[in-house]
């Protein structure tokens, strides 16, 4: 990000030059007029035609400088944002999955979006404004110093007080605004809550109760706003009085200097004009500080993402060699794992198992026993803390992550569809997929007929602006995606948990079709779905507690048998 700021720095430089130029022109004009005023007051007859030409020049140059200033400043901002976006996008997809999993991609997203906004505002508004103001004050100061050092001394001597007050005030105002903001959020949240739960609200006749609650929150907000206005308006009154006193002092001092003959009346005129020009910039610089502080938080957070380490790319195995069927697809030996590496809350403790190539293996166990964690480790989303993991006979470390992941496809209960067409959502299973391949995959997944029945077929948009698909339909799209990927190992995460009987049948069919000839690993909460699995691992307390097929496990009368009896 800093790099992007520096790389495009030449634009910023041009912007600064243009701003300085513009200020010089304005000061020059002032000077010219001050001289004229003195000549007039001195009783000379002045020839106005000599003024016209330089004035016209100043207007032309000033307009040009202003144009340059605006365009260079805005271009700079746009370029920096463009570069940051470009590098950020590439960076994001290379970050380890654990980063998103731990922070919750939802919160990363909202933060990132608002931070990007703030970043844009920093480069397009805050930074240029600050520079323009500083330039205005500096050029005016230099001009005034040449005129009369004492004037500038009075000005700057009386301003520290104002700066302190303005700073305090702006902090106070920001605090008040934030407080009001949180009241507003509370208010909106309350209303959202009531509407999202409208089915409950309606069927339980909660209208009166909820209206009362919402009204109370609104009243609190109004009260807070009234309180704020008393405080902030007093602040503004104070600020106005305090900023006016130095101005009056400056005027009086300028009058004194004129009386002493150190400056001419024309120069005093110029002084009052310039004073009115730089008063606002001085105030703004102070208020800028607050903005910069806020932007700084956002910039820091973006940099934090920027500095996050990317996933390893050092694996040397890039393709899956045709290993014999006798090599187990997956072999774990004493694997331990804890999220965040905390030893006390280990999820997997010394877990060992084998998944033979071409067979169906199931993991069962209560919720929170770490079944999903096994999948995450299999795909290399997280690294295990201890133990060995061999994928098709090779230690996992030797695999290139991308190649290792190309061995897996996943059908899970949470199906994510990208906003886009159905075609795109299926085709993302394989690079450069052809139309025929996509259609074939959809046929295999029992979803082609449904897609074909839509008016726009495969070009139908899904997501917020498109059709709303049922859970079963989404699931079958994800199965089609998996068909297209054609990976040797299939991970099934309870694919039929949330759908009804009819949908379950269609999905079951599709799943059976995709499972044939592959190594399949199933996570199941419902035991009825895994009765046919060749081998079942019962996970309990982060370990494999029981192993065997359905019949064997029932005979053992252990955890599995108990679970089965309950269901």
């Amino acid at each position: 990000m800093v790099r992007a700021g520096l790389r495009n720095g030449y634009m910023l430089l041009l912007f600064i030059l243009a701003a300085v130029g513009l200020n010089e022109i304005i000061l020059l004009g002032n000077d010219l007029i001050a001289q004229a005023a003195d000549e007039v007051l001195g009783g000379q007859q002045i020839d106005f035609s000599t003024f016209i030409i330089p004035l016209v020049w100043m207007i032309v140059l000033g307009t040009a400088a202003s144009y340059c200033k605006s365009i260079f400043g805005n271009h700079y901002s746009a370029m920096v944002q463009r570069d940051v976006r470009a590098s950020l996008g590439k960076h994001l997809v290379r970050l380890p999955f654990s980063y998103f999993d731990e922070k919750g991609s939802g919160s990363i997203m909202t933060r990132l979006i608002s931070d990007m906004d703030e970043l844009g505002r920093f480069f397009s508004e805050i930074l240029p404004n600050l520079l323009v103001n500083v330039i205005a004050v500096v050029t005016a100061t230099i001009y005034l110093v040449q005129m009369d050092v004492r004037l500038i001394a009075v000005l700057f001597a009386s301003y520290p007080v104002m700066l302190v007050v303005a700073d305090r005030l702006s902090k106070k105002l920001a605090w008040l605004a934030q407080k009001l903001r949180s009241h507003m959020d509370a208010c909106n949240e309350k209303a959202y809550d009531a509407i999202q739960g409208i089915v409950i609200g309606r069927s339980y006749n909660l209208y009166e109760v909820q209206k009362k609650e919402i009204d109370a929150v609104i009243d609190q907000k109004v009260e807070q706003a009234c309180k704020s206005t008393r405080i902030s308006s007093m602040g503004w009154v104070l600020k106005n009085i305090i900023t006016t006193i130095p101005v009056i002092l400056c005027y009086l001092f300028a009058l004194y200097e004129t009386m002493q003959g150190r400056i001419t009346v024309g120069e005093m005129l110029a002084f009052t004009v310039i004073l009115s020009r730089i008063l606002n910039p001085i105030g703004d610089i102070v208020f800028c500080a607050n903005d910069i502080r806020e932007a700084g938080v956002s910039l820091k957070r973006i940099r934090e993402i920027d500095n996050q380490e990317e996933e390893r790319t050092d694996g040397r195995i890039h393709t899956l060699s045709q290993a014999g069927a006798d090599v187990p697809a997956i072999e774990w030996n004493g694997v331990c794992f804890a999220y965040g590496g905390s030893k006390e809350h280990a999820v997997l403790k010394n877990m060992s198992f084998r998944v033979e190539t071409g067979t169906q293996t199931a993991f069962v166990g209560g919720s929170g026993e770490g079944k999903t964690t096994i999948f995450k480790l299999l795909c290399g989303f997280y690294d295990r803390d201890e133990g060995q993991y061999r994928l098709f006979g090779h230690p996992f470390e030797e695999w290139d992550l991308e190649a290792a992941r190309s061995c897996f496809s996943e059908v899970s209960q949470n199906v994510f569809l990208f906003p886009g067409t159905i075609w795109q959502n299926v085709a993302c299973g394989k690079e450069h997929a052809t139309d025929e391949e996509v259609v074939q995959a959809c046929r295999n997944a029992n979803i082609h007929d449904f897609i074909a029945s839509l008016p726009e077929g495969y070009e139908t948009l899904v997501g917020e602006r498109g059709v709303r698909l049922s859970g079963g339909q989404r699931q079958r799209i994800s199965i089609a995606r998996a068909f297209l990927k054609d990976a040797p190992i299939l991970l099934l995460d309870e694919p039929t948990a949330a759908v009804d009987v009819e949908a379950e049948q269609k999905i079951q069919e599709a799943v059976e079709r995709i499972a044939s000839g592959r190594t399949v690993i199933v996570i199941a909460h419902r035991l009825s779905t895994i009765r046919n699995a060749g081998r079942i691992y019962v996970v309990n307390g982060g370990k494999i507690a029981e192993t065997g097929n359905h019949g064997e496990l029932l005979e053992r009368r252990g955890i599995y048998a108990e679970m089965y009896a309950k269901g």
Partner: protein
Amino acid sequence: MGNCWREGEFMRKCMQRDDLNTFFRFMGLMGDRLPVYLGAILISTIGDAGRKIANSYLIQSIVTAAQDKNVDNVLLPVLGNFAVFVVCLLLWRFGIIRYNIEGRTGAGKVEKLVFSKAMRLPMSYYEQNHSSDFMSRLIFDTQKASDIYTSRLRRLLAAVLSTVAYLIPMFYFSWELTLCMVGISLLVFAADSLFAKPLKKAGVRLSDKNKVMLEKLTSILSGMELIKIFPVGARLTQEYETAGREYYQIQKSTNRLSAGLESLNQMFDLIGTLAFLGLGIWFVSLGRVSLGALTALYSLYGTFRYAFLDIGQYLPQMMNCIANAEKLFAFIDMEEEPEQWTQEPVSDDCQDIGEEIMLSVRNVDFSYDSLGGGACNGGGNVLERFSMQVRKGSYVAVVGESGCGKSTLAKLLLGFYPVGAGSMSIGGKAYRNLTLHEIRQLIAYVPQEPYLYEASIAENIAYGRYGASREEVIAAAKAANAHEFITRLPDGYDTVLGERGNTLSGGERQRIAIARAVIRNAPVMLLDEATSALDNESESLVQEAVRKLRGNRTILMIAHRPSTIAAADVVVRVGG
């Protein structure tokens, strides 16, 4: 000339009658506080303009003193003007506080009106409009419209009023120069409004592209798991970059436009300042104006110019807000759910039914088409000549394939929609003789996806019956097999649930929802696929909770699992 014409058209467009009506209707919402509100705006404006005018007189006396080399008469005006300045500030403060209080209260009134309206629409509206979509639009419109109260109107009125206020002393200082300045300001105004339209268009294009860009970024972030497994990451980053580059291109062309506007303004500013001073000096040399008056005039001109240009900026903003207010009124004027569905009386079955039948549905037809809009896929009747009778105290399972109308039946029983034909009764009374409020009072409903409010668990359960005591809440939780896990939570019953009850598992949420239904103590309990998304263990806990309630309540359970169906006294098959 062309500009003037444009200007006229612009004003006419802005001031269309509808907009005015909307505006007056909106202001009318303030009721009898409106005069106080407007008075406060007037006072604060006078205070603000007054102190700036006082400042200009101060400058005049100082410069005059410098010119005359006579400081004897300076002190009095300086102190006097400062006093006026302070008085004006206090006046402003008084006005602005009153204004803010009245404005905020008015905005609160609008919000109450809108939110209570949002809770009273017919159910079909919520089904057809995604709640977060229409709520965010609604909240946006409400805030924008309330901005009229809390900022827009004052800004516009203050700009107009103070423009007039500044002109009076300015004409007094020198009418010739003032006229000249007003002329230049009009030119700036015209130039600004010339740029307004293309700039607005560019703004729309920018925000559209920005939306695309955000969508791509969102795809990357929320699809991260897929990106890791499927070869889609490169394409998504590519798309994001492309969107970003397109955004950049639009930004660049917008930059040229805004640079044009800015430099034009700067040009007029320079012309104004330099010509004013040049002309002023000439006037001074002619003796038509004093140097003091000239300086005072210049200081006022700066303020005048801003106020004047503000009119051009605030008027369209105001119009935008009025457009939001119009949308708001369209929402407020929408039809609400009636107290009772008015149905055509059906000849064959008008009378109420015997006491022993808790629920009766006779020959009911229903189609979503009649509600205007397809909430469900496809047209046609969802229920056709559907009948069923449920005895008091029985446990009924309703089964059927997906999309056959099981959930629709539940919604009809709750009175969410009017039936197309046929009749229904509850507790021996015909639906058409009951208000919707009365009907719902008799039913305790547990939907498939239990919604828990962002409140404590105790409050969530207590919503079942207004005024329920803590003991009753705990008893209900025990009946619903929820007490045990609730007490295990660090805050127990006072645990505040996060967004959508995220901190609890599906089974736990479902059991809280059942506790809510239990505490309602209604004769009918209606459960819509209450266990379909749960794992075996949670399901059996929920099932057990429901089983405990058998007997004194009539239980209607929509289900598809064999285990659920097996427990029921009667199985009703819908469709097929």
